């Protein structure tokens, strides 16, 4: 019996020390990480703003894909929207920001965070990956299926269809949402 208590105590001590080490590391790194993430977010917003002035962020609850909306201002007029989108990727949730015109056409897309497989789904971070979505959503439908892509683009997403479809579905939902906002 005393043996078991001793074992439990040793294990408890190891766990407590590990927890302390983790807490100290977290206290050091968390503020640094937070600053970085805020910088990344602002950089991504700026990159998709297409030269418009960025308005205030309004959080959206109850939409499966849209998490926030920011109105893009061209003087007094609303030139478009930046939508925060989430998609279900292969490695978990992906956060995307995309700008839309008031008729739901996709202007620019940026991947904010994801856990996709290196070499496969992770290619979505590469420059040019989002080209296949940009310009769709209004007169052309968003390519949500590989058969809607050119053969070159389809080959580029082979091996990472889940990632491609997840981004497409989120962008399509964003396009619908931007149309519903209808210039307001």
């Amino acid at each position, binding site marked *: 019996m005393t043996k078991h208590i001793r074992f439990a105590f040793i294990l408890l001590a*190891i*766990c407590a020390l590990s927890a302390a080490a983790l807490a100290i*590391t977290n206290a050091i790194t968390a503020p640094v*990480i937070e600053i970085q993430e805020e910088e990344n977010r602002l950089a991504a917003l700026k990159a998709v703003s297409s030269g418009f002035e960025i308005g205030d962020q309004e959080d959206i609850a109850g939409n499966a894909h849209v998490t926030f909306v920011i109105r893009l201002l061209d003087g007094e007029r609303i030139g478009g929207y930046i939508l925060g989108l989430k998609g279900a990727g292969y490695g978990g949730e992906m956060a995307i920001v995309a700008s839309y015109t008031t008729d739901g056409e996709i202007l620019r897309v940026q991947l904010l965070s994801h856990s996709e497989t*290196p070499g496969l789904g992770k290619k979505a971070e590469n420059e040019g990956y989002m080209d296949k979505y940009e310009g769709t959503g209004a007169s052309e439908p968003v390519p949500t299926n590989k058969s809607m892509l050119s053969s070159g683009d389809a080959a580029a997403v082979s091996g990472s269809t889940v990632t491609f479809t997840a981004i497409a579905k989120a962008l399509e939902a964003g396009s619908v949402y931007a149309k519903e906002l209808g210039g307001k």
Partner: protein
Amino acid sequence: MNIKELTKGIFKENPVFVIVLGLCPVLGVSTQVSNAIGMSAGVLFVLLFSNIIISALRNIIPDSIHIPAYIVVIASLVRITEMLMHAFAPAVNAALGVYLPLIVVNCIILGRAEAFASKNTVMDSALDAIGMSIGFALGLTLIALIREVLGAGTITLFALGSFNGVIEVPWLVDNPFRVMSLAPGALLLMGFLKAFFDWKAMRKAG
């Protein structure tokens, strides 16, 4: 201190090809050379510290609870590595993505803790960790190099100054054997390389 503990991991007891440990990261991250190098660095860091800590505690941790004790130590180290990389090397963290937390289930770490660090001195355990990490890095980088050259026609290293980090292999870059970058290519290549290393070992043994 025995220098043999360092060298044995590189060829004679290479963790990838001889002991066949830690195959999930070997098959998973070997799509690009840069990922292989980043993963190897992560494994070196975690393995070195886990071997040192476990070896130092080897007389304190009772046999019947050694596995949970090792797992707590290893998991904490991996998490600390992840947080430090996230804060101070965000580019490496972004490149490794999901594979960094997966070091925790890399059997090389637990395997070396169990087979070596729990029975040997701190110094020998540290040497064992370095040797095994070098062996792992060689195995992983070799597989990544073959897979990336054949599968994508490129060699991705780290961007440095005006060099963008990607070397393109002529012809292959336009006509890649795409299967090599996918999962079946990894398994096929691992099979061939394992057969080759076994054949070499058999010839040596006569």
